[in-house]
């Protein structure tokens, strides 16, 4: 029997009231869903509606629908396929979304997002209080808003709010999170005006006050939430200090905001705010400060606070009133159920990969590393449905691709056995995760999840068992399906010939199967070479990276490249780029730089972390031994965690 909800996390799951609304718990789904699923002109698609139904079903007491831009020109539009709310023609789909949220017993809030400095995505310019050029090449050159334009934008927000309420939403939200228009007015970095909208905190906050007034007048009786930064992280470059952020918060409260959602950071802030390198709970102090300052105003908070138990304690201690949770619910829409029933070992934790946001900034629909079905809810092919023919499936390799495939296949009713030549599950990913400097525990949670689910679902694990034709001959006709998910290995053919025993495979070094000496030269500065180098260096080794390409981190996801660059610099790891290896010996390696200069790098251990190639031998060897033969993950094409999980899932869903 599942534990009753009330006994576990009592503060989080406590019933609450907010104005005239009775809430089933103290959890707010944060507007974490600018999705790029919609039509280019802003109309909501079936894909979005299907995703939103899942969001409505997460069980949050308050659900915020993604930020819609309020102006017909699209100056406020930040994302390629963002939803629009500047015309009644968009209302039918908003009505459906409000309906989904109400049907699930939630209070429905519609966010209105004018992106300001980050907007004008289709226009070739963006609008701001003052002309302060962009610091990130992704965004558009700025134009200064006239007073008349400011008044028009305020009116557009009020109209959008009226429309949202007409569609059935209970209230609205405006956002300054991550540096959108409201933040641009509030911040001295982007507001350098000399009229009544610029200068003092009061003047800079005038736009915000006008928005609050206009929206509240347009939607009487309907609450307005305002997202405001507790820290912009832009103070070192001329933005607001934390004190100024709190002055603005106090101003919003005096002006009648019905809830303040405390957020952190701008897109272009020189430091992380929501990445895996930020420890869970790191920003909680900002919510606490808001609550102390404004004890009578409901405070919502959740930035980089993925843990429901921590959120429960924060509510108990009065740090904030509502846990505002976003990415953890993308990674696992059943998080709240699992938390309530003390089944967190079954939770798919958000690992902070930022795959979701990286894709938005490439104008692609967002997807989630941990949740392959996200964004595909409308496609029956992604649903886990009972298999028409129950089969005996063997999965070869217990890395993320193999385990994901095994779990999905098992959930569909197949009988599944996983063969793994190592003595534990996780594959190469496990070693890599153990070395991660950002947050090893987040990555290791993936392995723990697979362990839990294998046990729960009754997946048979044959550890320490290498599959080869001999073993297969003994198993003939026992299995209907074999899935090769045997991962990849470093492709030594890409390196010059070397003295016997002079070269160590990065994956062996990462797994601790080989101990590195003091002086280590790592050949290849992709994610494996970098992760190993950073870990070795932080444990006192003397490490040098050699990379044939012009740059390091070529296979690292866009929003994490900078992190490796920064670590390499902070740790003082020399990186020889555009450098080829010409000889590998026991004493070290000889390299040739782009200008043709040769040098010798002395080393106690030389590690190969160059490109990997898939372990594909079994495809040929098993071909005539089994009815169905499939492959997934790095065994097909070596890439990374996201692709491994997604391919494993898709294969498991169709076997």
């Amino acid at each position, binding site marked *: 029997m599942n534990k009753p909800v009330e006994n576990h996390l009592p503060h989080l799951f406590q019933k609450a009231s907010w104005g005239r609304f009775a809430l089933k718990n103290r959890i707010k789904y944060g507007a974490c869903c600018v999705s790029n699923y919609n039509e280019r002109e802003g109309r909501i698609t079936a894909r979005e509606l299907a995703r939103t139904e899942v969001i409505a079903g997460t069980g949050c007491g308050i659900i915020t629908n993604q930020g819609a831009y309020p102006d017909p020109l699209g100056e406020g539009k930040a994302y390629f396929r963002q939803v629009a709310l500047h015309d009644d023609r968009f209302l039918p789909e908003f009505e459906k979304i409000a309906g989904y949220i109400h049907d699930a017993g939630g209070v429905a809030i519609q966010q209105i997002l004018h992106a300001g400095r980050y907007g004008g995505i289709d226009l*070739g310019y963006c609008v701001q209080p003052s*002309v*302060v*050029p*962009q*610091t*990130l*090449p*992704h965004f*558009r*050159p700025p134009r200064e808003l006239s007073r008349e334009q400011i008044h028009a934008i305020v009116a557009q927000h009020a109209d959008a709010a009226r429309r949202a309420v007409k569609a059935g939403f209970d209230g609205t939200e405006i956002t300054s999170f*991550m540096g959108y228009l409201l933040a641009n007015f509030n911040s001295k970095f982007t507001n350098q005006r000399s009229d009544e909208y610029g200068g003092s905190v009061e003047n800079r906050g005038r736009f915000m006050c006008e928005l609050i007034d206009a929206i509240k007048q347009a939607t009487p009786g309907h609450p307005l939430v305002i997202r405001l930064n507790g820290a912009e992280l832009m103070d*070192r*470059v001329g933005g607001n200090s934390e004190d100024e952020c709190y002055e603005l918060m106090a101003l919003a409260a005096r002006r009648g905001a019905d809830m303040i959602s405390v957020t952190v*950071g701008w*897109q*272009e*802030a*020189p*430091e*992380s*705010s*929501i*990445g895996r390198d930020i420890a869970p709970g790191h920003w909680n102090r900002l919510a606490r400060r808001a609550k102390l300052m404004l004890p009578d105003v409901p405070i919502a908070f959740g930035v980089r606070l993925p843990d429901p138990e921590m959120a429960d304690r924060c509510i108990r201690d009065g740090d904030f009133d509502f846990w505002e949770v976003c990415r953890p619910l993308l990674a696992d829409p059943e998080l709240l159920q699992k938390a309530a029933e003390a089944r967190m070992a079954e939770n798919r934790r958000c690992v902070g990969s*930022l795959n979701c*946001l*990286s894709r*938005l*900034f490439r104008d692609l629909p967002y997807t989630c590393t941990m949740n392959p079905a996200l964004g595909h809810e409308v496609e029956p092919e992604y649903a886990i449905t009972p298999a028409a023919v129950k089969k005996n499936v063997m999965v070869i390799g217990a890395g993320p691709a193999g385990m994901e495939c095994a779990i999905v296949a098992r959930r569909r009713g197949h009988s599944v056995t996983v063969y793994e030549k190592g003595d534990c599950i996780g594959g190469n990913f496990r070693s890599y995760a153990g070395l991660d400097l950002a947050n090893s525990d987040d990555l290791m949670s993936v392995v723990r999840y697979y362990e839990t689910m294998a046990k729960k679902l009754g997946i048979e694990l044959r550890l320490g068992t290498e599959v080869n034709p001999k073993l297969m001959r003994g198993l003939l006709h026992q299995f209907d399906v074999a899935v090769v998910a045997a991962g990849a290995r470093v492709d030594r053919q890409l390196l010059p010939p070397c003295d016997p025993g002079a070269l160590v495979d990065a994956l062996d070094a990462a797994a601790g199967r080989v101990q590195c000496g003091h002086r280590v030269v790592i050949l290849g500065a992709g994610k494996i070479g970098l992760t190993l180098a950073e870990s070795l260096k932080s444990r006192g080794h003397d490490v040098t990276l050699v990379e044939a390409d*012009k*740059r390091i981190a070529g296979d690292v996801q*866009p*929003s994490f*490249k*900078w992190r490796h*660059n*920064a670590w390499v*610099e902070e740790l003082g790891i020399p990186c020889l780029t555009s450098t080829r290896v010409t000889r590998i010996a026991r004493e070290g390696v000889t390299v040739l730089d*782009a200008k043709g200069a040769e040098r010798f790098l002395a080393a106690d251990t030389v590690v190969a972390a160059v490109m990997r190639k898939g372990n594909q031998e079994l495809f040929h060897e098993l071909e005539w031994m089994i009815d169905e033969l499939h492959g997934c993950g790095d065994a097909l094409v070596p890439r990374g965690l996201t692709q491994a999980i997604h391919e494993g899932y898709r294969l498991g869903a169709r076997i």
Partner: protein
Amino acid sequence: MGAAPSTHEMLADLPAWEAMLERHADTFAALQPGCGLGLVPKDDTERRPGRMLVWTRAEGGGMQAGLRPFTGYKDCGVDILFVAEESGLAAIHRALADRPLGEMKAALRRSELFLFVLKPRDQLIDDGWDDFLETLGLAFLGACR
């Protein structure tokens, strides 16, 4: 050892900047003629005119260093603008003969150097700035981290 050079002396040290540009010719090899980058000391962003060091791609190829007045962000006539704290400028100037781009990257991270882009990304790529921005680790820096 002589006294540390003043901000103006550092900016005006054109032979040293040009020698550095020459050594890093590869990084700027794809730049279109006429494209340029400005470097303004922070205090000068508030002066009218301030002083700005510019690196431009010459018509016949190669990079040139020069000085120009800085008259504000709106029309400063460059594609990319660096605003430098005095400490950042001094660190870069000191590293001119060694690893200046590495020092720029470090100064950016210490927030002693700040970058503004004055053209949209696609145009910067078309104009050949890709390598330089990547070298500084800037191409996709930021954007929700």
